Structures are given as structure tokens and as C-alpha cells.
């Protein structure tokens, strides 16, 4: 029970930190941090223990914030987060992810930046922007955003990214060149249905066994891949809706992932029948189990955004999600039962769980 847990919550009004212990019952809330800046994503650099928060101010532009004392004090940098004076301005940061030898930031308009000095300076990964499909990229409802970054666990040259209404790409040479990874993924809104690119990926995660095993929640279904995204197999059957945003993977069991189906965009993007539930699979998506115990089962017109679900690494695994109406829920038993951890927060854009000590 020595472990300390921190839940890192990104919102349009800054970062909030909830601190607790391994019992995962009592939480102390701090915030808003980062001067109240809109923050889309918060992560932990496992090497240094530093928190990294990505977002953008409507007045002062994009930045990556960094804290080495669990959010007590912060520095920030937007140095290098630019496409150059001839390019479009970078509006905000949507994802910050730590790889073996670098930190990556996904931004709007869609592009990828890399830092090799802990987030103090950033460099544009031009290879992705130079992809031949780039002139045809079109924004989705949330904008033209690079929101998912999946580093390979052992090969620093390999990386997957997800871009809304564009799809998944992979590099195997450290970002110099990229290939589309959308084969088998539907785009119901596209005349081809299975185009090379243009799929509206909402979230990509890697399974616990790493390497080639990926899952994605898409605008048009849920998918798995066992070959690094070269081919995707749909695993939507058994879920109440093909639409949703968040997805998170078990830290040790590669066949367990969680997702939160939502009603389709034209029907409101809330939990089906206004009854809150998280769905999990233990068999790689062959079947799904609904879990709503402890969650509001009536009149719950709530949604969850792509980055707003996370797991910890304890035994059993804790699962957490934040709603777009400011409730933070947690489960200490791998999603079997749930409890409200915090209420009346700003809309929750991201949740991350960090174990310390």
C-alpha cells in the first residue's frame, strides 16, 4: 500500500491533479494548474518522473508545460512549435507522448513535433507533413488534429500516429517517411468506404505485448490489428454503438481493452440510452462485457472524449474516465465497479494515471 497515485486531468481551464494511495478510495484535488491554460493532454515521462502537459492559449499560442514536482511548479515552452513563418500557425497541442529517446507532440493543424531535450525545444517532423496525401487532408468536426501518438516500445525509429478524418500512419525510419495504415477500416462517409486514407480514427492504443498489436476506436467502428496496422479487423460486434472516442489498453493483458460507446454524432454523442457504461473485452474484441455498476443508469446524457480514459498499473488495474460535463469516475477492480471521484470540474479533455513511490 506504499504506492502513491496521481490522476492527471486536462481541461479547458487548466490541469487538475488528484492524489491518492493504492486503495484508490480517497483523493485530494489540486488545481487549476498551468495558469488555467486549455490543456488537451497530460503525460508522465517515466524516466524523469516529470509531468508534461500539452495545450494552447487562445491568446498566447501552443505550449508544452513541464513540472518536476508533480504539478507544484511548471515551466513551459513553445520554442520550435512552428511550421515556419510561411506555414500555418500552430493553434494548440493535442497529444504529448514519451518514446524511448524523445518526446513527441501532436498538434493542430495536424503535424508532429519532436523534442530530445525534455520538452525545452521542439523540431517539426517534416516527413509526415511532406506525405503525398497531405494536400488532401480535410479536418473533422474537431479540426485537423493529430491526436494519437503510439511509440514502439523498443524500436525508437517506429511510431504510429492518428489524425482525425485522415487516418493512421506509421514510420519505421524515425519520421523521415510514413505509410498509411488504414486497410480494413471503414469510412462510411467516403464514396470508397475503404479508401487508403480519410478514415476518422478517434484513438489508437498499443496492446500490452507491444510490437504489432494495436487497437483503435474509430468514428466507424472498433478495430484490432496484429500486424502493426497493415491490416485491421473490425471488432465492433457486441457493442451498443460503433461510435465512441476513448480507448485504453490493459498494462499486462494484451487481450483486454476498454472503450466507451456513444450515440452517433447526429444522435448526441452520449452514452446509449442515457445509461452510463464502460465496455471491456478480455478476448481481444471477440466479445464485450458491459459494466455500469456505480455509474448513473438513468438520465445520464454524458460523453467522454478521446483522451479522457486511462489505466493505472496496480493489481488489480484501476480504470478512470472523465466526462465532458466534469465528472471523474474510477474503478479499482478493472472496470467491474465504479465510483465518482470528483465532480463539478470543467469539461474533462484528458485523464492519465501515474503511480509514484
Amino acid at each position, binding site marked *: 500500500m506504499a504506492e502513491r497515485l496521481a490522476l492527471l486531468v486536462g481541461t479547458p481551464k487548466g490541469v487538475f491533479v488528484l492524489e491518492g494511495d493504492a486503495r484508490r478510495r480517497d483523493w485530494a484535488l489540486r488545481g487549476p494548474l498551468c495558469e488555467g491554460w486549455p490543456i488537451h493532454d497530460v503525460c508522465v515521462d517515466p524516466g524523469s518522473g516529470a509531468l508534461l502537459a500539452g495545450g494552447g492559449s487562445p491568446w498566447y499560442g501552443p505550449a508544452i508545460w513541464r513540472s518536476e514536482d508533480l504539478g507544484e511548479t511548471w515551466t513551459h515552452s513553445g*520554442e520550435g512549435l512552428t511550421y515556419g513563418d510561411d*506555414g500555418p500557425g500552430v493553434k494548440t497541442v493535442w497529444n504529448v507522448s514519451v518514446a524511448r529517446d524523445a518526446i513527441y507532440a501532436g498538434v493542430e493543424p495536424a503535424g508532429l513535433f519532436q523534442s530530445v531535450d525534455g520538452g525545452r525545444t521542439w523540431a517539426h517532423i517534416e516527413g509526415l507533413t511532406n506525405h503525398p496525401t497531405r494536400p488532401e487532408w480535410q479536418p473533422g468536426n474537431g479540426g485537423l488534429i493529430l491526436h494519437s501518438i503510439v511509440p514502439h516500445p523498443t524500436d525508437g525509429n517506429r511510431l504510429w500516429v492518428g489524425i482525425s478524418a485522415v487516418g493512421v500512419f506509421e514510420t519505421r525510419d524515425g519520421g523521415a517517411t510514413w505509410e498509411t495504415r488504414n486497410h480494413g477500416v471503414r469510412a462510411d462517409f467516403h464514396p470508397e468506404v475503404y479508401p487508403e486514407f480519410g478514415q476518422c480514427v478517434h484513438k489508437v492504443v498499443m496492446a500490452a505485448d507491444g510490437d504489432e498489436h494495436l487497437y483503435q476506436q474509430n468514428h466507424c467502428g472498433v478495430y484490432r490489428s496484429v500486424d502493426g496496422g497493415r491490416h485491421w479487423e473490425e471488432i465492433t460486434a457486441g457493442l451498443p454503438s460503433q461510435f465512441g472516442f476513448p480507448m485504453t489498453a490493459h498494462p499486462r493483458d494484451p487481450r483486454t481493452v476498454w472503450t466507451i460507446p456513444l450515440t452517433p454524432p447526429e444522435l448526441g454523442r452520449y452514452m446509449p440510452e442515457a445509461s452510463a457504461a464502460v465496455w471491456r473485452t478480455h478476448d481481444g474484441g471477440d466479445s464485450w462485457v458491459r459494466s455500469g455498476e456505480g455509474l448513473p443508469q438513468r438520465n445520464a446524457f454524458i460523453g467522454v472524449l478521446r483522451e479522457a480514459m486511462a489505466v493505472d498499473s496496480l493489481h488489480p488495474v484501476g480504470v478512470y474516465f472523465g466526462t465532458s460535463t466534469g465528472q471523474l469516475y474510477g474503478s479499482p477492480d478493472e472496470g467491474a465497479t465504479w465510483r465518482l471521484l470528483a465532480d463539478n470540474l470543467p469539461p474533462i479533455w484528458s485523464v492519465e494515471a501515474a503511480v509514484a513511490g
Partner: protein
Amino acid sequence: MAESPRPAIVHLPRSLVALFPDAPRRIEVTGVTVAEVVDQLDRQVPGIRTRLLDAGPVIRTHLNVFVAGARATLETPVPPGADVHVIPAVSGG
């Protein structure tokens, strides 16, 4: 010996100064245009240029800069001793 031009007086908003712990709200900077003032300001407060300017470079959409009370662009001349106000626009949210 020629007398140095009187510096402009730059007034910074609280929300911007909060990002740079040692920066004052009022700071003297020499420059004959707003662009030069911003460059000089960045020497005294490293990183502040990135917060003020977007690609182009242009002043960020939701920031306004006034020189002696008149709205300015980066090309606007800054007379000696002028007051330069940086003010976040209410359009920012």
C-alpha cells in the same frame, strides 16, 4: 557623443507576465518599430516573442498592441519614450 534614444515603455498584461516569473509588468525597451521592440523584449524576457507572435510573423490574433494609444502592427513606428501596451483581446474566450 550622441544621446541614446529614450526607450519605449512596454506595459505587459498580468496573464502574460504570469508565464515568466521574473518579468515585470512595466519594462523599458529600445526599438524603432513594434517588431524591434518585440525582439528586444525577447532578449530581456527569453521566450516572450513566441507568446506574442504567430507565423508570418504577425501579432497573435487575440492580442492587441497599442503604440501611444493607437492600435499597431509589427511595422508600426515606436517614437522615443512611447507607451506600448500589450492587451489580450476579449475575443480570446
